[in-house]
């Protein structure tokens, strides 16, 4: 079963616009991770935010975490066509530390139109 739920399921924007994706989870976590997947193949780790962090930046990515609401958001600023991909949030399963097996959300399919 999926720990995380993401919304929207699909998002289509124009190049240069910002894209925001949201993730909710059910159990207590040590950290939350975001991954990108192109064309249904391998996932690429984007960013990890720990449970004691509220916000983290990496280049054009900004991730927030609200443990009281059990939710996280991923913001991509100044989007590019190359950002077109599926984006997943993932959390270590209950009771596990950060290096262990992950439970993934359903994913958001982002399309950035040139």
């Amino acid at each position: 079963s999926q720990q995380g739920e993401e919304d929207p399921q699909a998002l289509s924007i124009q190049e240069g616009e910002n894209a925001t994706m949201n993730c909710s989870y059910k159990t207590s976590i040590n950290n939350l991770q975001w991954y990108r997947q192109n064309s249904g193949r391998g996932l690429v780790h984007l960013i990890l935010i720990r449970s004691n962090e509220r916000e983290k930046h990496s280049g054009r990515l900004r991730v927030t975490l609200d443990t009281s609401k059990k939710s996280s958001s991923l913001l991509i600023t100044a989007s590019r066509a190359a950002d077109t991909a599926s984006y997943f949030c993932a959390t270590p399963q209950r009771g596990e530390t950060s290096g262990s097996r992950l439970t993934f959300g359903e994913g958001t399919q982002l399309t950035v139109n040139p």
Partner: protein
Amino acid sequence: GAGVSQSPSNKVTEKGKDVELRCDPISGHTALYWYRQSLGQGLEFLIYFQGNSAPDKSGLPSDRFSAERTGGSVSTLTIQRTQQEDSAVYLCASSPAYGTSGGGQFFGPGTRLTVL
């Protein structure tokens, strides 16, 4: 190699046949994971190896699925008597160590399995 590699990239088999999928993790990574991604089921954890510890097999969907990791490096996922519902992309990932909090897992490109 610099990243996780998997072979074959695509596998088409007939129902009832056995298949073996291979994963070469990043050198020095002690943790290795197998996941499956299929339509309608999303990304599912299958099995996890950490060093010399007994693997966590809690995600394997049936006893037709097994995996081993030789010498703490290469891993093989075996599916016996394949069924059509086994059709999916099988993803392997590795990470430096259990409990590492500095980063996530490194994924291979996956093996797309099609059972006819």
